């Protein structure tokens, strides 16, 4: 493959382990959750060992996802604030979708689309946690008034919908932008990839590399 000096590290082993553990948790949560959401998906409850086991395990798995997500979000939140050239990039969303990347301004480690995914998941997972605890039988639902459980059930469904659609977009973007899946499986990207997709981040990383190479 590429010589190591052509590579930039994008994700640490810890980031990658966290990400793929979240993938497993999220997929199982989405499948089992859809089973409770719509009869058409009820067969998916077998993804967690049948309907009753799915009801038992789904909330615990939700806690696993929340813990992993918080660990990730805390570390990466600073990279997901609106930054230089982001507004201009968003104005040119047509160029983004048409792959006219040469017209786009250079951006940092994450583009506004990725930042939107980050914040959509922050909001929806927080809503899923709160509403999920309120609905959680047999442990917690008994402590809440039924009207609140009704509201929580609706919020849980809406937040799950937002999260699932966000992840569908996230997965598509990973398939669309060549080289990004390897960055999350092996951790590195080429310099050319970094310059093309994340110019400001590439410059920052290359300067860091140069500083490290000076004795």
């Amino acid at each position: 493959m590429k010589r190591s000096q052509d590579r930039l590290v994008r994700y640490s082993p810890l980031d990658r382990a966290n990400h793929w553990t979240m993938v497993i948790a999220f997929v199982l949560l989405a499948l089992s959750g859809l089973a409770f959401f719509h009869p058409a998906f009820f067969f998916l409850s077998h993804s967690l060992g049948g309907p009753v086991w799915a009801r038992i395990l789904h909330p615990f798995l939700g806690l696993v996802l929340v813990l992993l997500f918080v660990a990730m979000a805390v570390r990466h939140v600073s990279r997901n604030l609106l930054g230089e050239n982001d507004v201009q990039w968003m104005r040119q969303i047509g160029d983004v979708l048409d792959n006219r990347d040469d017209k786009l301004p250079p951006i940092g480690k994450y583009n506004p689309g990725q930042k939107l995914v980050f914040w959509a998941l922050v909001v929806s997972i927080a809503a899923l946690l709160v509403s999920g605890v309120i609905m959680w039988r047999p442990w917690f639902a008994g402590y809440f008034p039924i009207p609140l459980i009704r509201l929580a059930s609706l919020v849980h469904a809406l937040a799950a919908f937002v999260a699932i659609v966000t992840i569908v977009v996230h997965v598509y973007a990973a398939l669309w932008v060549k080289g990004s899946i390897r960055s999350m499986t092996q951790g590195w990207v080429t310099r050319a990839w970094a310059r093309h997709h994340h110019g400001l981040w590439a410059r920052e990383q290359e300067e860091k590399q140069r500083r490290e190479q000076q004795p």
Partner: protein
Amino acid sequence: MINSQNIIARSATTTPPPQARSHVEEVAKLIDVSKCIGCKACQVACMEWNDLRDEVGECHGTYDNPTDLTAESWTVMRFSEHETADGNLEWLIRKDGCMHCAEPGCLAACPAPGAIVQYANGIVDFDSNHCIGCGYCITGCPFDIPRISPKDSKSYKCTLCSDRVNAGMEPACVKTCPTNCIEFGTKADMLDRAAKRVGDLKALGFRDAGIYDPAGVGGTHVMYVLHHANDPNRYSGLPKDPRISPLVGAWKGVTKPIMAAIIGITAFAGVIHYVTKGPKEEPEEGPDDDPTTLGYDATRRRDDADDRPHGGDR
């Protein structure tokens, strides 16, 4: 399951239920609150017939015992002391339990196919075999009836003695009631009886007497005769206008197909975008590219970028 052809509604099912028995007469239980003496014989009969033995509770200084419905107490007498405007005491005693709604909120909310069924005669029954213990039925019920058992995490409620009724008998509580305050028959007959009794009560001076058969849930197959039908709340919080909560309606109604469709459409849009626009790739670096300079000019904007045809620019 009793007579599967008789099931006219089934939880978490999107195809039509069997229609063959649509001529079956609807049944109803009529509870005449004005005749109830609060003896709790119906509670005992319910325990006996359904073989239920709830935990022995504690006395809370009232006659309420047990103080609430549980997974093993499917009917309870609720006692309320109401002071009238002219200073008189009314001791109102209501037998609480499943109302067997024509439009059951529990059935609408239940995610497990077949865990809740409605028979052609109007009885709403839980099939515990299919219950998953999620408690959505509790969320859906406008009367706060179903209870999840701490022993097995299944949901329980009054069955209207569907097993007895199927064998041509009346429910156990009806059979045992010493004052005849609970009656059982076709819904039409029970409405006739109720109307007659309401007439009697009005003649006795209860001007607001009436039948409790709330239209908000399509009518119920357990009905009350109330001396104060204008204020059902007085009877230990019987709801005045029960209906499936709009939150439950939104959650289990229109959002289900719409959100499921949008998830699918989003994924499909990805497929179409990929096959029309193609992947996003960085241009190949030529051999004379200097890896120490950056391949962009941060000041460049769209207006001075040269227009290239879409897609392949390599």
